[in-house]
């Protein structure tokens, strides 16, 4: 399939899987069940068989509710976690099994921005130290004045006054800290940025500032983003394509405009209808029954089956495959495939 693409995608996920073991150590796996002592391992299936491409220059948004595995995907790509299965390719080269040293050249290309600006900066380092460290580490041959120049340039580009450099993170507000965290990621001149809920801990008026900053950096530096969020209004504004995750699987992947105009998967529809609108007095909110099941010991069939109004026997036993639709979107749903949904 990829051979047909003339341009190689920047990042490719192939059947990515991540399971976390709940019971660590031998003794914890011993359980007493119905009169017998058995050995049992429980696993959390955080990410199940996800395949995605990120094209150069796009902003791919990954949305979903808590526990859907969106942060795990980000951490797998950033190399903070090791996948349990599947492959991650960056510019055609496999990166998920590389050693720390083999990853080094990639660290300059791929950076990450975190959710909590209160925890993502080392509280014992001044802003100057925090920004200088990556520059020096990755460019040991750079002269002192060049390093200072570089840090000052990056600070100015994110709207942080270089005269604040001697201060510690606790002296700044959340929005300013997030700017500094973005600056730190930009000091190594990356081409790809993984942003894990970068604005959800911020106030509304500050969210707009940070989002604008990220858009500006995208346009000026030609950045590619993988943007993890739960906020659909941000997706609509920021993303070029959207992947909707539910319980560790992709249920719908489409261009942003297509997805918001014409959502196909029942979960996507419910998600879109649940966003509180400003000027709409009577939203027709689609009620989902029940709540998200725990990702321990997943159901056999479609992960969404327990809450879906269109679920039938096939949904209970067979996992739907992601299929391409006429408008280019990819949907994993038996009901869509069989055209059982009324529109």
């Amino acid at each position, binding site marked *: 399939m990829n051979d047909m693409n003339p341009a190689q995608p920047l990042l490719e996920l192939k059947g990515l899987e991540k399971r976390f073991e709940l019971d660590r150590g031998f003794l914890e796996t011993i359980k007493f069940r119905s009169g017998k002592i058995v050995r049992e391992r429980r696993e959390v299936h955080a990410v199940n068989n996800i395949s995605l491409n990120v094209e150069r220059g796009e902003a791919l948004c990954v949305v979903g509710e808590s526990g859907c595995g969106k942060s795990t995907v980000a951490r797998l790509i950033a190399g*903070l976690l090791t996948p349990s299965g599947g492959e991650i390719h960056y510019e055609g080269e496999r990166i998920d099994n590389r050693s720390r040293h083999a*990853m080094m050249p990639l660290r300059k290309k791929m*950076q990450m921005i975190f*959710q909590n600006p209160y925890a993502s900066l*080392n*509280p014992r380092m001044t802003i100057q130290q925090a920004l200088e460290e*990556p520059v020096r580490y990755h460019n040991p041959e750079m002269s002192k004045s060049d390093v200072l120049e570089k840090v000052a340039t990056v600070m100015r580009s994110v709207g942080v006054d270089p*005269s*604040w450099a001697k201060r510690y993170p606790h002296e700044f507000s959340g929005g300013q800290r997030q700017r500094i965290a973005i600056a730190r990621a930009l000091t*190594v001149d990356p081409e790809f940025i993984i942003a894990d809920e970068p604005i959800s801990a911020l106030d509304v008026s500050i969210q707009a500032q940070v989002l604008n900053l990220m858009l500006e950096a995208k346009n000026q530096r030609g950045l590619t983003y993988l943007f993890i969020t739960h906020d659909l209004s941000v997706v609509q504004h920021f993303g070029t394509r959207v992947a909707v995750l539910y319980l560790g699987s992709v249920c719908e992947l489409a261009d942003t405009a297509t997805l918001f105009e014409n959502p196909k998967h029942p979960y996507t529809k419910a998600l879109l209808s649940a966003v509180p609108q400003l000027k709409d007095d009577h939203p027709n909110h689609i009620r989902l029954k029940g709540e998200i099941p725990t990702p321990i010991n997943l159901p056999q069939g479609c992960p969404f089956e327990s809450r879906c109004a269109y679920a039938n026997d096939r949904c209970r036993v067979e996992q739907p495959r992601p299929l391409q639709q006429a408008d280019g979107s990819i949907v994993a749903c038996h009901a869509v495939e069989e055209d059982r949904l009324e529109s």
Partner: protein
Amino acid sequence: MSTLETIPPPSLWVRLWDSNMGYSFRRNPVAVVSLIIFVAVALMAIFAPLVAPFDPYDPAQIDIMNSEYPPIWIEGADPSFLFGTDDQGRDLWSTILYGTRLSLLIGLCAVALQAFLGITIGLIAGYVGGRLDSLLMRLADIQLSFSTLMVAIIFLAVTQAMFGSETFNQYAIYFLIVVIGVAEWPQYARTVRATVLAEKKKEYVDGARVLGFGPLRIMVRHILPNSMSPIFVISTVQVANAIISEASLSFLGLGMPPSQPSLGSLISSGFDYIFSGSWWITAIPGVVLVVLVLVINLLGDWMRDVLNPKSFKG
């Protein structure tokens, strides 16, 4: 925004004085008095050769005829000996100053050794995790299940027997530092490991990993500076403990020799005379030891209250 630009960053002392720590220190008379006493004792001990009227290590200055003079406020005292003299005729005041110096030196060096071992092991155990963590922590458990004194007594008794009294006395100070230092590293290792586990989950550590920094750099540059508060708190307690351990060992005759007495050996050497009326040889160094340990513990208590957010009194 504008306020940030106009005020220049204050100096370290001003920052320390204005910080919550400085503020709570000023508001806490017990801590202030403790610090003053500790600094006074420490300064006098450090500058003992300048402060003391006699040099207790110099046999030429010791006259056996001067032995067992009482302190000057008791009848029959010699006015040149402030706290009287011991059984060998040494000036007790000078001997206490030199002894305190030894006790503090051994305490601080032993704690430095404990801290070095414990912090290194705790950092590695906490950061690397897995089997190495289990192994190191089980070692710490085993070490802790022997009492410090028991280990020290066995070790010192064996070395004393091996090298003979004379050689042992010559190197007693090093043996004491090593044995107290090695016996108590698990205290540090456990505390450091616990804070490392908490810090490791924070996003700035992930950020450092995404930037490609090596484990050594992350441990030393990023995690360690953020784990300092509990290290400070246990250090004070450990210094007090080490001074007591040293005093106990010296009292038992396994520490500093009577010719170079620490507070412990001084108390011990006066013990034989306590019932013949010369109580001061034991009592005065005893009071100094108690006061020294007490002020260190009081400072430690205050520091724990300030640095530990859980016991914060709102």
